[in-house]
């Protein structure tokens, strides 16, 4: 996808693209969500979708998702999409125009927004990551952009995403930075975070054995005095996922210049539980 291609197919001006997020829908198709900006900065973003039926060889023309009544701007994606039991796709998004808050969009099979639910409100939460445990139960984490103490926010649903608990601060710090989370098959809940309140110089792995109620820092990926530091010691925008073989992949921005990819298996993780 290029800016020119998006502009041509969306039939409107497009200045820049960003925040790609990929997932699968209920038919197994690859769905790539990304934001485009027509005017101004990233707060002027709108979300778009392209679909591939051949594992990424070819892609459909982009279609615009409508998620806000205010010129449909200010909506961005960061967290992975999820599947509802009926086959609809749930897409965590956040708004950055005037307010900063998270929402969960529900998309039909054609990729149109048919419902949305608010995860938070106000001006201090963004970049939601949602991890389902069953058809009805899920937990969500959000970056915190409010006043101190700076902590990762948590929300929960027990009715399939119809209602969400008000955002609450966890014990985990958050320097106004994105987080990544994944629930391992028959295993614990993992969270990749900057384990500090003020900077992104530390990137760590936290484990929860009780689906987010309590946490333990299991490993530090970046920030040890012995490990090589990036010229700009900043490690951010983590993404974590488990592949079909059971291995866990962690990807993040390394020093604002590279994407770093780490891979570990269950045996490595068991040694740190």
């Amino acid at each position, binding site marked *: 996808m290029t800016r020119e291609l998006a502009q041509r197919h969306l*039939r409107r*001006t497009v200045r820049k693209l960003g925040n790609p997020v990929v997932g699968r829908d209920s038919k197994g198709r690859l769905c790539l969500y990304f934001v485009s900006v027509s*005017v101004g900065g990233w707060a002027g973003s709108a979300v778009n979708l392209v679909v591939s039926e051949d594992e990424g060889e070819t892609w459909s023309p982009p279609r615009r998702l*409508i998620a806000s009544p205010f010129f*449909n701007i200010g909506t961005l994606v960061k967290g992975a999409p999820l599947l509802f039991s009926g086959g609809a796709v749930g897409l965590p998004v956040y708004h950055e125009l005037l307010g900063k808050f998270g929402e969960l969009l529900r998309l039909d099979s054609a990729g149109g927004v048919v419902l949305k639910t608010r995860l938070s409100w106000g001006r201090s939460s963004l970049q939601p990551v949602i991890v389902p445990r069953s058809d009805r139960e899920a937990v969500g984490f959000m970056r915190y952009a409010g006043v101190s103490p700076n902590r990762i926010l948590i929300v929960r649903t027990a009715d399939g995403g119809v209602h969400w608990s008000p955002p609450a601060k966890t014990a985990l710090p958050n320097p106004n930075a994105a987080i990544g989370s994944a629930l391992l098959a028959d295993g614990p809940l993992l969270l990749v975070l900057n384990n500090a309140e003020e900077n992104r110089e530390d990137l760590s792995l936290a484990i929860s054995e009780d689906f987010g109620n309590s946490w333990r820092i299991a490993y530090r990926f970046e920030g040890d005095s012995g490990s090589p530091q990036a010229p700009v010691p900043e490690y951010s925008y983590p993404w974590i996922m488990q592949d079909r073989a059971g291995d866990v992949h962690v990807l993040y921005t390394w020093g604002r210049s590279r994407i770093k990819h780490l891979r570990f298996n269950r045996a490595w993780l068991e040694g740190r539980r």
Partner: protein
Amino acid sequence: MSASDAFGLFGCGLASLAAAATVIRLRRLPVRARYAVMLAAALAVFVPIGELSIAAWVRGVTGDLSTATLVLAGAACFTQVTGRALIEPRDKRALCGLLALAAAFLYPFALGWTQFDPYALGFGSVEFITALLLITLAAWAARLNLIVLVVIVAGLAFLAGAYESRNLWDTLIDPLVSFYALAWLLAGVRRRPSNGLACPTASV
């Protein structure tokens, strides 16, 4: 080109034409000149310059425009070309008042003020459709035909899939027409004499 793309571009182009015709005060020109200028403006707005037309540039900024905007823009174009008003001030005052109220209800909450999100009601909630029906019936009973027209056109456009959005709010209202409605109402208040009997006289 999909139906929603065509409709979206048409709406943005129409609003651009209405703005241009109003700004240059088209109706002060001789009748033939009005048609010629309008035709030239339509070509300039809809024919792509390079990859995009002016309508596509506007669409990039505003998104697809509501039927309230389209009806008011269409009426403004008609008035500027023919010199005849299509909309009675009473009708327009009622529509602008309703749009201003709807905007005050919709936008602060939709932009994250509270947990309540009225925009979510537009995804086919029974409460929203019932309220819309009651408002339309009340407008019809009060002979406020412009409101009835806007709601009917919005409903038909929604059912025909003319909008990218699946949310009824987006067919009824947009920020552009909200600002316009508020400005028009405030201008009416400023124009009103101190005895308070006169109504805004500007019409399209």
